[in-house]
C-alpha cells in the first residue's frame, strides 16, 4: 500500500506499519461534514484525494473558509492537540477518498510513537502558516488575487488541471458574494490564466497565476516543504 497522502508518505516505513492496521478506507463525497462545531471529534482522516474546507462560523449558516486540507494534511487536528472538539466546521468541498482512524486509537498511537507525533505536529505548524497567510490575503489582497491564491492551493492538492468547483463554493471560500466570484473568474480568464466553465475551472498558466497571486502564495507552501516534504 503506497500512500498518496503526503503525511503518511513522509513517515518512515516502521511508523507507516504502526498506523496501517488501524486505517480504514473512506469515501469522502462532496458535502460530507467531517467535523461539526463543538461536537466531539470521533475520527481523524488522512485524505488521499479531494479537498476539505475548515470554516470559521459566523452564526449557524454563515462562515468563511480559514483553512484547506487535502492530501497534504489531516482532518481532526484538535485530537492531535489534546482537544476533543473545535468551533470550526469541516466538510468536503471536492469529492475524494482517504483513510480514517478511530480517534481514541489515534491518541494511543501518538502516545506510543513520538516520531509520528512529531511529524504531525510539524504539519500543524505548516497548516497554521497557511491560515496566517489566509488572514493576510483576506486583509490585503483583491478578490482576484485571493481567487488566484485559492486556485493555486487547490491545484497543489490534485494531479490534474481541472478543479471542479461552483461559484457558490468559491464565494464561501473567499467570503464574498457570488457575483464578485463571477467577475474575478472573468478577469483571470481574460488574462488567459484559467478557463472557467460551469462548475469547472481549468488552470492554464500556472506560473503566471503564481505571479499574479503575489505574497499570498508561496510562503506557506515553502514552509510545508521545509517541514514535511514535497507538497505537489
Amino acid at each position, binding site marked *: 500500500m503506497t500512500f498518496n497522502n503526503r503525511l503518511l508518505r513522509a513517515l518512515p516505513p516502521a511508523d507507516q506499519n504502526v498506523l496501517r492496521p488501524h486505517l480504514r478506507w473512506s469515501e469522502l463525497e462532496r458535502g460530507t461534514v467531517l467535523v461539526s462545531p463543538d461536537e466531539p471529534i470521533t475520527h481523524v482522516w488522512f485524505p488521499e484525494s479531494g479537498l476539505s474546507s475548515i470554516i470559521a462560523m459566523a452564526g449557524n449558516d454563515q462562515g468563511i473558509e480559514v483553512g484547506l486540507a487535502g492530501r497534504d494534511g489531516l482532518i481532526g487536528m484538535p485530537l492531535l492537540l489534546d482537544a476533543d472538539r473545535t468551533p470550526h466546521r469541516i466538510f468536503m468541498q471536492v469529492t475524494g477518498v482517504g483513510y480514517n482512524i478511530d480517534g481514541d486509537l489515534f491518541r494511543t498511537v501518538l502516545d506510543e510513537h513520538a516520531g509520528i507525533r512529531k511529524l504531525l505536529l510539524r504539519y500543524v505548524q505548516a497548516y497554521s502558516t497557511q491560515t496566517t497567510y489566509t488572514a493576510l490575503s483576506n486583509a490585503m489582497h483583491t*478578490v482576484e488575487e485571493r481567487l488566484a491564491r485559492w486556485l493555486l492551493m487547490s491545484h497543489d492538492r490534485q494531479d490534474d488541471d481541472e478543479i471542479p468547483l461552483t*461559484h*457558490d463554493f468559491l464565494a464561501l471560500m473567499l467570503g*464574498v458574494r*457570488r457575483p*464578485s466570484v463571477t*467577475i474575478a473568474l*472573468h478577469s483571470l480568464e481574460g488574462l488567459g490564466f484559467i478557463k472557467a466553465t460551469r462548475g469547472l475551472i481549468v488552470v492554464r498558466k500556472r506560473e503566471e497565476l503564481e505571479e499574479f497571486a503575489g505574497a499570498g502564495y508561496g510562503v506557506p507552501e515553502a514552509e510545508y516543504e521545509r517541514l514535511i516534504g514535497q507538497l505537489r
Partner: protein
Amino acid sequence: MPLFFLHIDDGTQKIEDEEGSEHPDLEAAREEALGSARQLWAAAILKQQDIGARRFVIVSGNGDIADTVEMDDALPRSLLDRLKMQSRP
C-alpha cells in the same frame, strides 16, 4: 426556491452568471444584486475604477428578464445626489 441568474452587463460586454442562485422571490434576488453591487463598488473604489456603467440583469429560471439593477442604485442616495450636482455644467 426559484432560480435567478444575475448577469452583469456594462453595455459593451456581458458577464454571464452560468450557475444562478436560489432566492425566495424577485425582491430577494434584487437585494442580492444590490449587496453584490456594493461589494463591487468597494473593490472598484480601491482600484480607482468607475463601474457606474454596469448593471445587473436579473433573469428568472425560465429565461425571462425579471428586472435590472443599476450599480448606482446601490450607492447611498446622498452620495449619488452630490455626484449628480457636481457633474452639472
